[in-house]
């Protein structure tokens, strides 16, 4: 009798939370997929007609935005690596007793709503704002110059908002590396560059990949940065989805786009998880 109860315990523990996720995560996704093949409009209602042409027309109209989102996602991720890896390295290897302080400083911005932070950037980078106005008055920049409403601003905003998501996983992986390994490499006459390239870098790869996952997926699906900092040529697929659901109320098209986005990102996510396991990501999320 006791063995039954003991075996049942984990299932009972998981039941409430699991049920919640099933009802409010799994089932809504299924409803989304179902909605994507429906037709209709707001006044007459939407009915299921298995109209798979929704996907074709959605792709026809908005493949530019899809590709642009993946492109911006890629560039922002690379910038995050370039900017974030040195920071993670420095904190892990040279941070010493102050490691947690540095991590804390890195995460400090998250105490302010990211909408507010992005809007602050909009004010800061405004055509005649704090940054550009003195440069324009001094004649260094032409009157016509602008940072906002360009792809640069959007990618900059994306990099800004998601940099800590790259730094943390890399830091976690680097922190686990025994510094004696580096010493050992150097004892064997490796230069610092070689020691890094052949010892540290390979050991940090799981963290790097976790960071890529935690950065690329949300960046590609973002729309706030494009809406606040971007212009007409910078809309991302997230903006279109938001517009379809919250403005035009063309639910089937929005659902089709949402599902396509999820599918594209899912393929990446799951091949990652298959190759490297879910451990790294779960560990970082726990921080």
């Amino acid at each position, binding site marked *: 009798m006791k063995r039954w109860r003991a075996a049942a315990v984990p299932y009972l523990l998981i039941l409430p939370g699991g049920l919640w996720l099933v009802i409010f995560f799994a089932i809504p996704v299924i*409803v989304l997929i179902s909605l994507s093949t429906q037709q*209709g409009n*707001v*006044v007459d209602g939407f009915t299921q007609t298995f109209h798979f042409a929704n996907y074709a027309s959605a792709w026809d109209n908005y493949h530019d935005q899809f590709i642009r989102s993946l492109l911006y996602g890629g560039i922002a991720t690379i910038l995050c690596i370039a900017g974030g890896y040195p920071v993670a390295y420095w904190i892990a290897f040279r941070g010493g007793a102050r490691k947690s302080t540095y991590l804390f400083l890195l995460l400090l911005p998250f105490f302010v709503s990211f909408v507010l932070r992005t809007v602050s950037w909009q004010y800061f980078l405004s055509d005649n704002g704090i940054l550009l106005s003195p440069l324009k008055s001094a004649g260094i920049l032409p009157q016509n110059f602008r940072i906002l409403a360009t792809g640069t601003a959007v990618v900059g905003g994306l990099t800004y908002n998601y940099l800590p998501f790259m730094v943390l996983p890399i830091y976690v992986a680097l922190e686990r590396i025994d510094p004696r390994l580096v010493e050992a490499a150097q004892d064997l006459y490796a230069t610092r560059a070689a020691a890094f390239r052949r010892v540290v870098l390979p050991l940090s790869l799981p963290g790097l990949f976790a960071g890529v996952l935690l950065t690329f997926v949300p960046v590609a699906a973002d729309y706030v940065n494009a809406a606040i900092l971007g*212009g*007409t040529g910078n809309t991302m697929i997230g903006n279109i989805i938001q517009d379809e659901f919250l403005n035009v109320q063309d639910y089937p098209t929005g659902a089709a786009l949402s599902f396509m986005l999820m599918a594209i990102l899912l393929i990446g996510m799951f091949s990652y*998880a298959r190759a490297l396991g879910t451990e790294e990501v779960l560990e970082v999320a726990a921080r």
Partner: protein
Amino acid sequence: MTARYSRRAALQLGGLSAAALTAAACGVQGAAKQQPAAQAESAADKFWKAQKKTGTVTFANWALYIDPNHQTLKDFTAKTGIKVTYNEVIQDDSSFFAKIHPQLASGQSTGYDIMVITDGLEFSELLALGEVIPLDQSMLTNFHKYAGTPYQHRSFDPGNVYSVPWASGSTGIAWNPKYVKTPPTSVSDLWNPAYAGHVGMMSDPQEIANFGLFKIGVDPESSTQKDWEAAATVLKQQRGAGIVRQYYDQSYINALSKGDVWITMAWSGDIFQQNLSAGTNLQFIVPKEGGTIWTDNMMIPKYAANPVAAMQLIDWYYQPQMAAMLTEAINYITPVPGVQDIIKSDAASAKGSDKATLEAVASSPLVWLSAADYARLKNYVPITSKNQSTFYGIFQPVVAG
């Protein structure tokens, strides 16, 4: 204790999902069937007979009309004892409609007793869906007494069953003289490559369609699908050449004030308001090819908690004195004639900067339109349920893509 997920687990999940997917063939419901007119009228009578007076009212409106603590609202509270909560939550019709429609469709109150909707697609959709309460005509005493004749007979709401006008206005071109040295006169000035990256256009397809049609010299009120496609081509050209910075809802006013945008499509009274409240020096004209004239209308959404108080507040604004105070604040076209004289006498008795402002309002060509102006101003393209998806299919990709 990590377990890399196995193919089995993935297949299990996949199988469950597929099963659920086939079961989820349910759709989203649309409008309930509308009752025939006579039945609807007696239903409305019954509805209003059952209503009681309440002590609060919530008013949802656009920003850049009055302030939440404007004198007209304070006077209303003083006279009736009803407390007014004024929320500036509307930035454009389609996003506001997208917000309230799911709520009303599920039987939930929006929390608003009065909302202000422009005469366009969303207005007709609200009517078709039955999501607004017909007004209590017996409480519209001031309206019937003081409103101008054209405003008592509007084609999009005959008999004023569901709405009365709040204010009327025009869409034209606004610019910042600091960056635009030659005052614009034509719609083509919005296509000027010299302003590339600093031109604002509106994101509402109905607004932008009109300007596209003006550009190619077509009257929106009699335009055909061929005209629409030509207008869309010209708009896409404007966008492709990098001239348009962004498609804005009412937030164009922010971008214009900051200097990010130099010249933009704009609503007449917004410029006046912004100059007054933010100290800017923005200018506005109606282009020579024409501008758009629209009417914002007060309506009562379904499931409103305080419909009687709403009716009182709606009728309140048709007293000439209140209408005058409103126009002085917002600088939009009023549905109450005779207001101009009241404003002129207010201006005569005022002092200092107030006097200058009131005199400007009393003589503003944007508020008191001449016959020539009326001839130049056009309504939105008339959309019916038949051509709606064609129209939107043509113009939505211009602003959304």
